[in-house]
C-alpha cells in the first residue's frame, strides 16, 4: 500500500444529485442529534458512486459541511479506508488478490496477465478509460482462489487463460459470468461432490 493522498488534479466543485441528497438526509437521520458525523462513511461512499468511483476534494468539503465536521476529520476517514479511491479510476477497477491462498493457486500468473494486457501500472487508468487495477490483500474468497474483484463482483478460480477471457469480455462491454470461472457452484469441491451425494433414505 502506498501513502494515500488526494489526487493533485481536482475538479472545481461537487454536488450531490437531488436523489442522493434525499438518500443522504435519510442516512443522517439514522443517528441521534449531535452524532451526525457517524454518517460520514455512507455519504462518502454515495458520493464516490455518483462521481464515477472516486472521492474528490470538493466532495470532502461538501460532506464536511453537511455533517458539521471539520474537513480534516472527513479527510482522515477518506484516507483511512482503502475502499475510497482518491484518484480517478477506470470503469472497471480490478482488485487482484495476492494473499497466500491465492498466491499458492497461481495469483502471480493472473497478475502478470492483468498487467500485460492492460499495459499500465497499479492505480493508472488505461487509455480507453476502461480499466485500472490494484493488488489487494485477502478478499476472503480463498476456497475459490485465485480471485479478482471487478467493481462489486468476484471472479474466481482463475488462471492465465480465464483471466484473459474475462478481460476480453469486459472490454467488449459484455457481462461475464459472476463467480467461479470453472463452472462449479459457489465453493463446492472442484472435482464434483464427494459427500452428501445421496439423500438419506432415498434417491438424490
Amino acid at each position, binding site marked *: *500500500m*502506498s*501513502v*494515500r*493522498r*488526494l489526487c493533485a488534479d481536482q475538479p472545481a466543485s461537487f454536488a450531490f444529485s437531488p436523489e442522493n441528497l434525499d438518500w443522504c438526509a435519510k442516512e443522517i437521520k439514522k443517528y441521534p442529534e449531535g452524532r451526525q458525523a457517524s454518517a460520514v462513511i455512507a455519504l462518502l461512499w454515495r458520493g464516490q458512486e455518483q462521481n464515477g468511483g472516486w472521492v474528490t*476534494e470538493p466532495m470532502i468539503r461538501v460532506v464536511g459541511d453537511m455533517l458539521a465536521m*471539520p*474537513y*480534516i*476529520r472527513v*479527510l*482522515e476517514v477518506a*484516507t*483511512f479506508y482503502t475502499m475510497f479511491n482518491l484518484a480517478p479510476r477506470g470503469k472497471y477497477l480490478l482488485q487482484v488478490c495476492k494473499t497466500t491462498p491465492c498466491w499458492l493457486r497461481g495469483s502471480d500468473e493472473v497478475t502478470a496477465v492483468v498487467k500485460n494486457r492492460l499495459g499500465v501500472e497499479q492505480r493508472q487508468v488505461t487509455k480507453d478509460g476502461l480499466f485500472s487495477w490494484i493488488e489487494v490483500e485477502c478478499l476472503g474468497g480463498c476456497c475459490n482462489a485465485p480471485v479478482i474483484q471487478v467493481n462489486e463482483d468476484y471472479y474466481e478460480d482463475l488462471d492465465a487463460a480465464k483471466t484473459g477471457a474475462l478481460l476480453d469480455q469486459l472490454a467488449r462491454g459484455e457481462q461475464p459470468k459472476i463467480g467461479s470461472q470453472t463452472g462449479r457452484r459457489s465453493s463446492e469441491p472442484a472435482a464434483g461432490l464427494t459427500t452428501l451425494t445421496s439423500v438419506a433414505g432415498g434417491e438424490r
Partner: protein
Amino acid sequence: MPKLTIDGIEIEVEPGTSLLQACEAAGKEIPRFCYHERLSIAGNCRMCLIEVEGGPPKPVASCAMPAADKMVVHTDTPMVRKAREGVMEFLLANHPLDCPICDQGGECDLQDQAMGYGVSGSRYFENKRAVEDKNMGPLIKTVMTRCIHCTRCVRFTTEIAGVSELGATGRGEDMEITTYLEQAVLSELSGNVIDLCPVGALTSKPYAFSARPWELTKTESIDVMDAVGSNIRVDARGAEVMRILPVTNDDVNEEWISDKTRFIWDGLKRQRLDTPYIREGGKLRPASWAQALSLAAQKIKAAPPAAMAAIAGDLACAESMMALKDLWDRLGSPHLDCRQDGAKLGAASRGDYLFNSTFAGIEQADALLLIGCNPRREAAVLNARIVQRARAGHFSAASIGAPMDVNFPCQNLGAGPRTLQDLLDGRHPFAATLQAAKRPMLIVGMGALARADGAAILAAAKKLARNVGAISTEWNGFNMLHNAAARVAGLDLGLLPGAGGLDVAGMLEGAKSGAISLVYLLGADELDLSQTGKAFVIYQGHHGDAGAHRADLVLPGAAYTEKSGTYVNSEGRVQIGARAGFPPGEAREDWTILRALSESAGHKLPYDSLAALRARMIEAAPHFRHVGAVQAATPGAPAAAGSMGDAAFVSAIRDFYLTNPIARASSIMAECSALAARHSLSLNQKDQAQ
C-alpha cells in the same frame, strides 16, 4: 476508594484514577509520549507499559487502565523493562538519527527516554520511513519524519484550542499528521503544540537553529500581552531574548500561552529607544540623560499644575505607575489617567473592575453571557478554559455584540445595549437561562465600556448580574475582562483623574485647545496623538511607536523582560516578573527615570530602591502584599449613570497580533497578522459567494 500496591508501596487513590497517575502518586516515574494530564487519553504510544499481577500475562498500558481495588502493580520487572525496550526499538526503527541538527535536542522526551529504555544497537537494517514536511504556517516548523504519532497536537487543537485544524491522515503504517490541505494553523494557541510535541517534529520556526536549551538563562516572568498575566519563562542568551515559554500556573494560564506571548520576542530587538531624544527643528536628535532630564524639569517647572497631564499606557508596570502617580500628586496636577482606551471604569469598589469569579471559576459556571468582548482575541488562554467548559456540557453561552468567531457554541443575542436592556427587563428568553443557572457568569469586555455610554452599560450589567443571582455570598460571577496588562494595577493605585481632573479624552482635547501644555506619556501609544496641538509631549517608553513619533522628548525605558515589575491581572492577582536582561543602550528601568525626573523637577520622590517603592505600593494598596493571590472583592451597588446609546458593541481588539508597540515591532506578528487577514478575507468571500 481503590487501594492498591505499587512496587510494594500501598496507596489509596481517587476512583477513576488511571494506573499511571497512581504510579506517579506512589513516586514511580512512568515513561510516556502520548499521555498528557490535560488532554484526553489516547493510549497509542505504548511506552507506559507496566505489569499487573493476576491479569492476563502481558504488560498493561497504564495510562488507559483505571486503578482498581487490590491491584498489585510492578513498574520495574524484567517483563516491563523488556516491553518498554521493545516499544522504544519500534519507535526508533523509523526515527531519524538527526539529534545533532534537531532543535528539540536537550529537551526531547524521546532522547531522554531512549537513554533510559533504549538499547545501543538496532536490529533493523531496512530503510527508515521518510515523511514529507507539512506547512503549518509561520510559527510551527515541521520535520515530520521525526513524528512518532502520539497525536498530542491533534488532541490539543481539538480539545483545548477548540479548532479542529490538525488531523492524522492515512492511519496505519503511513499515518501522517497534517492540516487540511496544509493550510496554516490559525489558532491563537497554536504555539503550544511545540511544547507538547515530545520529539522534534513540531518545533518553533522563528527560533529554529538559534540556540540550545542548555546555553540559555531561564528567568520566570509575567506576560504583558493581555490582562491574563500568563506566567512565562524568558530564555535569554546574554541580553538577547531567544524565546518565551509558558510556566505552569493552574490558576492563571494552566500550561498554555498565546502565540502573541510566545513569539513576541523578535519585537524586543527592533525599534528600540536606546538613548534619550530631544526634538529640534522637527527632528528627534539623540541627547544625554542630563540634557533630557533638565529639559523635562524645565518644562515641568514652567507649566502650571492644571496644564500638565499624564497618561499611563497598557504595558506599564505597577512600580512606574506608582512613581508617576506620586510625582503627579506632588506637582499638584489632577490630570492623570491609566484608561488609555477611555473605558468608563471607576475605582470606587475593586469588585467593579475585577474578574471576580477568578479564571478557574469558569469551570464551575453553568451559564455565560459575554457583553462586548471576544475572549478568543482578548484573552486566548482564558478562552481555552471556556472551550473546555463548553465541551464538558451542561453549559450555555451567549454574547451581546457584533457577531464574532468564538470557537465554542455561543448564541448571539443581539448587537448592543438594547439587548442588554431586554435581558434586564426579562423580555429576552436568555434571561430565564441565566436566572435558572446555579452559577451564572457575566464577562464584560472593554468593547462595552470604552464608549460614551460606558458607565450606563456598566451599571446595567451590574444590575443584571444582581438580578440573575450572579453575585451572592458563595459565587461572584460578575467579571470584567481587561485587555491591558497595566489596567488593574493602575486602577488599584488610583491612576485616575483627581478632583476636577480630565480623563484621556479630556486631556487630548485640552492639548488641542491649548489648556494642557505638557503631556507625559508613560508608554501610552494607542492614542490619536495627531491632535495634541502645541503641547510639549514627553514620552517614556521602550519602543519607537506612536508616542515617540509625536514626542518632543523621549525618555528610553525598559520593556517587560528587562525589569522586575509588578503586574495585576484581570482577576486582581498580583504577580511579580523577574528581569531577564538589561535594557539596551542608555535605557533605564522606568521607575528610576521617574525618580530622577522628580529630583530634577524639585519634587523628589521618597524612594531610592525597588523595595522602598514596593513598600509604598503596599501602603497605597495593601493587597500588593499578597503576591500570587487574589483578594476577593464585591462589586459596588449599580449607580445611576445616564442612559445607554444604540451603537453595537465591538470587541476592543481589531487585530489580535498587533495590539501593542512590541507586537507592532515584531516581524513574526506582522506575518501572522497578514495571514489572519488573508484568511478572514477568503472567509468573507466564501460567505458572499454563498
